[in-house]
C-alpha cells in the first residue's frame, strides 16, 4: 500500500483531533467530534468541508469544450463563462464511469478554461479514459491540478454571508451552478454556488499553499454565525438526506443513468459519446431496477448491501443507509424493481438477519426551507 495522500489541510484536521480515515487513498477527516452535531450545525448555520481529495482536471485550449462534449452525457460546449453543469461519463454499455461537474471559467485577464471535478475514487480511471480522446483532439491541454490546489466547501444558510464578506466578487448574486474566478486577500480563488448537502453554499478552489489561510479566514468570518468544521461522515449523512447519489454506492459501471434517476443528466439528441447508442435503447425500455428512498420503522439502521424483500422474496439491495439526524429516523437508498418503486410500497429490509418494515418514500428525504 502506498502512503495515504494528504490534503494541504491535513495537519489542521489532525491538530483538531479529527478522526482520520483512508478515503480513496487520501487521509481524510471522517468526523471532528460528533457527526450529528456537525450535520445539524450545517443545516442551521454553516459547515466547512475539506473536499480537496476530489480530482480537479483543467482543460486549456480552443478545443477543450469539443473534447469534453465527446466524452460526457451532456453537452458543455454551450456553457458560457461562469456556468457549471452536472454530467456523467458512461462506458459503451451506458454504465456510469463517474458523475462530474464541468465548469467554464474566465479569469479576470480574460483567459478561458474548463475544469472537471471528478470523484477521488475515479481519478485514475477517468484520466485513463480521457487519454485516447485527448490524443485525437486538437488544441487541448489537460492538467491534473488536484495536488496543486485545494477545494473547500462551505454549506448552510450562513454560508453566503460568510463567503461574500471574504471576496470582492458579488458571490451572493451568483445563481445556482454558477461560478466566478476571484481572489481572497490577494490569493486567487474560484467560488461556485455548488454543493453536495442540500443546502445553499459555495465551493472554493484555491492554491494548495493558500488553503490553510483561506480555511482559517472562513472560521474567523463565520465564528459568530456558528461555523463548524465538518467531516466526510457528515457529508455522507447530508447528501443522503438530500437524496443525492454517491459513486461506489448508488452509482457504478453496472448502473445506467435511467436506473439511477439521472435521466436529466443525459442528452442524446445529435450527440456522440461512449454509451450514447446503448442509452438510446435503455431510455425507452422499462427499467429493470430503480433507485428509491426507504424509510424504516424503529431506530435500527439499514446499511449498504442489506437485502430488500417483498413478500418474502429478495428483490433489491440497500446502497446507502443512515440514521437521519434531521428527521430522527433511519433512512436508506436502494435499488428495487420498477413494480416495487411507487411511494408507500411496503417492503422489508433484512438488517443482519432481522426483517424490518420499510416503505418507499419520494426522494429527497430533506428539502431545505426556501423563502
Amino acid at each position, binding site marked *: 500500500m502506498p502512503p495515504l495522500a494528504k490534503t494541504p489541510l491535513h495537519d489542521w484536521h489532525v491538530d483538531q483531533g479529527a478522526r482520520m480515515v483512508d478515503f480513496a487513498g487520501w487521509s481524510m477527516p*471522517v*468526523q471532528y*467530534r*460528533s*457527526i*450529528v452535531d456537525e450535520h445539524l450545525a450545517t443545516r442551521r448555520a454553516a459547515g466547512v468541508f475539506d473536499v480537496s481529495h476530489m480530482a480537479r482536471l483543467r482543460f486549456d485550449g480552443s478545443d477543450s469544450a469539443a473534447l469534453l462534449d465527446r466524452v460526457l452525457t451532456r453537452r458543455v460546449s454551450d456553457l458560457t463563462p461562469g456556468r457549471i453543469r452536472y454530467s456523467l461519463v458512461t462506458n459503451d454499455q451506458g454504465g456510469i464511469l463517474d458523475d462530474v461537474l464541468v465548469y467554464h471559467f474566465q479569469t479576470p485577464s480574460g483567459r478561458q478554461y474548463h475544469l472537471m471535478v471528478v470523484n477521488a475514487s475515479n481519478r485514475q480511471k477517468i484520466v485513463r479514459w480521457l487519454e485516447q480522446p485527448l490524443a485525437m483532439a486538437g488544441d487541448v491541454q489537460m492538467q491534473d491540478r488536484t495536488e496543486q490546489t485545494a477545494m473547500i466547501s462551505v454549506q448552510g444558510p450562513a454560508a453566503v454571508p460568510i463567503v461574500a464578506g471574504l471576496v470582492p466578487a458579488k458571490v451572493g448574486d451568483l445563481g445556482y451552478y454558477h461560478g466566478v474566478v476571484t481572489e481572497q486577500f490577494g490569493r486567487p480563488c474560484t467560488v461556485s454556488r455548488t454543493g453536495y448537502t442540500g443546502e445553499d453554499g459555495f465551493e472554493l478552489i484555491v492554491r494548495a499553499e493558500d488553503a490553510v489561510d483561506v480555511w482559517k479566514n472562513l472560521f474567523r468570518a463565520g465564528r459568530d454565525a456558528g461555523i463548524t468544521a465538518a467531516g466526510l*461522515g457528515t457529508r455522507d*449523512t447530508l447528501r443522503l438526506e438530500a437524496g443525492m447519489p454517491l459513486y461506489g454506492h448508488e452509482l457504478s459501471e453496472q448502473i445506467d443513468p435511467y436506473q439511477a434517476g439521472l435521466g436529466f443528466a443525459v442528452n442524446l439528441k445529435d450527440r456522440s459519446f461512449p454509451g450514447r447508442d446503448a442509452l438510446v435503447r435503455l431510455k425507452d425500455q422499462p427499467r429493470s431496477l430503480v433507485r428509491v428512498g426507504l424509510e424504516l420503522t*424503529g*431506530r*435500527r*439502521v439499514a*446499511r449498504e448491501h442489506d437485502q430488500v424483500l417483498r413478500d418474502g422474496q429478495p428483490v433489491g439491495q440497500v446502497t446507502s443507509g*443512515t*440514521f437521519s*439526524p434531521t428527521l430522527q429516523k*433511519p433512512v436508506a437508498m436502494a435499488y428495487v424493481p420498477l413494480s416495487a418503486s411507487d411511494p408507500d410500497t411496503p417492503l422489508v429490509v433484512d438488517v*443482519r438477519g432481522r426483517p424490518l418494515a420499510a416503505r418507499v418514500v419520494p426522494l429527497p428525504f430533506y428539502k431545505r426551507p426556501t423563502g
Partner: protein
Amino acid sequence: MNEENLLYSSSHEWVRVTEDEGGKVATIGISAFAVQQLTDLVFMELPEVGREVAAGDEFGEVESVKAVSPMYSPVDGEIIAVNSALPDRLETLGEDPYDQGWIIKVRLTDEASLAKLMDYPTYQKQCSEEG
C-alpha cells in the same frame, strides 16, 4: 463508581463483581473510551433476562450513525437483569457510563473468565494504543 476498580475486556466492556446472596454477580457496561469512539449512538438492543451467556458471546448490539457494534459478555453466567431504560436514554452512556449506564447483570456460573480480564492500567494502555 470508580473506573479504576473495574475489570475490562479487550472489546471494551467493563465488569464490576459484587457478592449477592452467596453468589457473585457481574454488572457489565461499555467503557467511556468505547462510547467516545462510537459517538452519535442511536440504538441499543438488550438481551432477555434469563439467557445463559458464555464469555465471548454476543449479548446485544449498540448502533451509531456510522456503524453497528456487537457487545460481548466478558463472563460466563445467567443474565439476571437488563437496564431497560437505557435504549431510550442512550446519552446516559456518555454521561455516566460506569453507574447509570450499566447494561446487564450476570450471575456467574464460573469465575475462570474473570482472570482473563484486564485491570484499569492495562486497559488504559490498550486504549492509548487504539486511540
